[in-house]
């Protein structure tokens, strides 16, 4: 009989353990050691410590990767290049979001320790999404992440917008989880197992157009596409993004999306890989619809958070294209895209975080007007992030698009390639509405930006990475290379 929890299991699980333990520790310490709200920012050190331990565990896993992938818990979890790559992204995103949050939450008057715990719990869920190879593990990971996010989106208890966003996100999210669970139950019904490998074998035996396979495919896809905010399941995203605290929006748009993409890849390249003939046309259509909805709706937005929400919908469309191409370039492209998207999108939201000041919501096109006169550094960074989001070289965003386009050409999806490239021009139009506001208009108010040490560090990091990955991408491309699912 196999032992229940071996050292090998622990080795694979250790980042999640650290995240969960330190998440709980923060709650306890808040209660016992820091009764004064003003001291709560010191809890950040616990978070950083926890992330440090998680990162150390991940580092050891990374070093061990040369020996091949490892299974744990009887095949429920796996430690492979893919999981490690995505977990690096989660750690980076969580740390960046955490260190910019304290000032923002103080301004909002909602600086609570639970926030940091929830960040870590959500990240713990993401760990399972990237590493899970079992339907139940994956589902629990998804719910752990989603539940944490439901709370975080509604974290501004006194704000109607925040409450509305949370309610909307919760209802639609629960609904889509229901679909997903139903899809998983059909998969279990087909294969009699919850292991992805068993499910893959069972679906492969039945062929792509078997009615049960199609049912599993349809229901699972609805759940997954909701999570990455693909059209027509994107409706929650603009409202949730707009209403949530900006730091949470940043986290939601980046880490949650990265985790959901990892989840999507695990399912579509795992159990559903053999049903490619059935899903490729549908996903192609959905990808185009997603890019269309995201890009066209973004054009008319005057709220920058909402604009970035729609733009992040269109980015989900680009990421899906890599999956549709499906060759090594495409999958690597998704990995690179997620990596660069993390930094550039976080960066853009960080500038919005700085725009939130006492008494100024700072989300409107008018609020960012003339930013270059007041804070040229922030304006230039925002320009950099927006250029990168649009995919203009030599910024990091270009590399993500580069791989996606290349994979589409390699697999002869020429029409998709042309549509995807032309939407770059559309994207420039709305991103440059922000640029235009920052650089050609006059200031609307003189209040200085609310900056903090953490925010400056985070902005410097995202800025350097966004430009640095664009100018010298080699190490990052190597890293993405290790993430390929075999």
């Amino acid at each position, binding site marked *: 009989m196999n032992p229940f929890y071996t050292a090998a299991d622990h080795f694979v699980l250790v980042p999640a353990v650290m995240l969960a333990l330190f998440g709980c520790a923060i709650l306890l310490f808040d209660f016992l050691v820091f009764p004064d709200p003003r001291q709560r920012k010191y809890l950040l050190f616990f978070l950083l410590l926890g992330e440090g331990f998680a990162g150390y565990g991940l580092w050891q896993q990374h070093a061990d990767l040369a020996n091949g992938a490892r299974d744990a818990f009887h095949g429920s979890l796996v430690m492979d290049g893919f999981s490690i790559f995505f977990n690096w992204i989660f750690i980076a995103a969580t740390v960046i979001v955490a260190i910019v949050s304290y000032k923002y939450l103080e301004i909002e008057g909602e600086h609570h320790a639970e926030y940091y715990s929830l960040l870590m719990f959500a990240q713990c869920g993401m760990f399972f999404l990237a590493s899970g190879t079992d339907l139940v593990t994956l589902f629990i990971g998804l719910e752990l992440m989603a539940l944490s996010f439901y709370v975080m989106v509604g974290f501004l208890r006194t704000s109607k917008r925040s409450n509305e966003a949370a309610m909307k996100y919760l209802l639609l999210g629960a609904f889509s989880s229901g679909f997903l669970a139903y899809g998983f139950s059909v998969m279990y019904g087909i294969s009699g197992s919850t292991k992805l490998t068993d499910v893959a074998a069972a679906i492969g035996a039945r062929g792509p157009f078997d009615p049960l396979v199609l049912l599993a495919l349809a229901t699972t896809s609805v759940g997954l596409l909701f999570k990455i905010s693909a059209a027509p399941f994107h409706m929650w995203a603009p409202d949730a993004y707009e209403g949530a605290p900006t730091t949470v929006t940043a986290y939601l748009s980046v880490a949650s999306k990265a985790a959901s993409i990892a989840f999507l890849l695990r399912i579509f390249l795992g159990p559903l890989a053999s049903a490619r003939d059935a899903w490729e046309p549908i996903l192609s259509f959905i990808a185009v619809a997603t890019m269309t909805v995201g890009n066209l709706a973004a054009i008319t937005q005057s709220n920058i958070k909402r604009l970035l929400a729609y733009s992040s919908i269109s980015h989900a469309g680009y990421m899906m294209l890599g999956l549709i191409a499906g060759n090594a370039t495409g999958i690597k492209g998704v990995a690179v895209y997620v990596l660069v998207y993390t930094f550039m999108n976080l960066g853009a939201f960080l500038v919005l975080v700085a725009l939130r000041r006492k008494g100024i919501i700072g989300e409107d096109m008018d609020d960012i007007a003339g930013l270059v006169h007041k804070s040229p550094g922030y304006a230039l960074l925002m320009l950099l992030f927006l250029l990168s989001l649009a995919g203009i070289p030599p910024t990091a965003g270009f590399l993500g698009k580069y791989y996606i386009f*290349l994979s589409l*050409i390699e697999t002869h999806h020429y029409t998709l390639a042309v549509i995807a490239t032309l939407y770059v021009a559309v994207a420039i139009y709305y991103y440059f509405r922000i640029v235009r506001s920052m650089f*050609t208009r006059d200031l609307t108010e003189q209040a200085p930006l609310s900056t903090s040490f953490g925010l400056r560090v985070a902005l410097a990091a995202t800025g350097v990475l966004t430009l640095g990955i664009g100018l010298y991408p080699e190490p990052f491309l190597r890293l993405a290379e290790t993430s390929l699912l075999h």
Partner: protein
Amino acid sequence: MMNDHLLSLVLFTPLAGLLVLLFIPSRQKELIKVWANLAGFAGFLISLPLVSRFDKGASGFQFVERANWIPSLGAQYLIGIDGISLLLIMLTTVMGFIAILSSWNAIQDRLKEYYCMFLLLQVGMLGVFMSLDFFLFYVFWELVLVPMYFIIAVWGGPRKLYAAIKFFLYTLAGSVLMLLGILTLYFQYASQFGKYTFEISELMKLSLPLGLQEWVFWAFFLGFAIKVPMFPFHTWLPDAHVEAPTAGSVILAGVLLKMGTYGFIRFSLPLLPKASMDQTIVQILAVLSIIGIIYGALVSLMQKDWKKLVAYSSVSHLGFCTLGIFAMNPNGLAGSVMQQVNHGISTGMLFLIIGVIYERRHTREIAEYGGLAHVMPKYAVVFAIAMLSSAGLPLLNGFVGEFTILQGAFEANRAWAAFAVSGVIFGAAYLLWLYQRTMLGQITNGKNLHLHDLSLREIVVFLPLIAWAVWIGVYPKPYFDILEKPVQQIVERVRPGYYEGGAQAATRPGTGVNGQ
């Protein structure tokens, strides 16, 4: 060895100037101006050794520098020049310096950002003309868009925002489609040779079927034709020119548009020889060029706005450049490159001339002027030279280019030459008429009575361009010598056996000009 890194030095001098400029406080306006001008001048000076050390007898690329950049992609930092790029690089460094110098009084606010944008633009343009790696080329190609957007959008005229975003979107839409073409070649190379590379000379080894070449050709075409701009993609140009500040127009017309024609010569022709020789494609492009020549000229005749007139004349002149390229013979190609340089010089001068009068009167309505020669004699002389050089008067530069192109066009298809010649006539018509309406006759508008003539700085701006125009017009031989080898290589690549045929009398380009 300085030779080893001379090109990088030329490429990054403006960037070094920019980095220093960033640390000069915005209040120090004089210092910013002086430094930016020094950086521009240094960029020109440092490019001079390229001319003296260039070996025009050698074939292939010179001053080549190669370094691994992104091994995973097969992208290299690979730069080098041949005669064609040499001329365009010199045009860039000269026009760049003159554009910066001409901004001394014209730009009064946000100086630091303005000059930073100009220097960045300079890096992008130089990079485009130097890159021998398609990835690197694309990076520089796109890099140009951002500073130009800001130059128009921040320091431009009343409709600047519209013009700036139109410029950006048009050219971006073209260039992302071009990117698909590049990636197709890249992928085809990898599947034929088993390794990924963006190196142009490697990609030239590809043998692709005609059908695929045609697709890639059209993808490239969209990227380059929008930049040139060829008819019917020219509509962004008048807007951008009219709204841009003077120096922006000078660089836009003088150098930026040549990125498109350069792209045709450097990439479309050698990489896709079959498609480039396909009769349907050649016919379409030649006809578009001729439409551009005549349409641009006719629209220029109708303009009431001085700057718009010159902007449309660019459409016409660039039509000559593309016609020369698709004549696909040594005269056409060499004439095209000459005409690109000439257009840079003469249209650059024309825009500067408009800038001079606009600084004094703040209007560009032609009807507002008349008889300026009485109050501004020096100005009238300079304008006359620029106008005649643009109209193609013999002994000035424009003639050399147009004549050679027409020779090439005649050799390819007599009808093309016949139609194109009418563009020369229309060109003389709108330019002379413009001159007559603005400079000659009596002063009818009282506001023009007390305009002061060119200042010393303004004369210094014009002098090198006039000298260059006369030099090319009187003694173009060195230019054609420089162009002979690269043009020969391209023609041999596109039309193997052309030089052995012996049927063509004029194989040395430019031999018809000035009786040489």
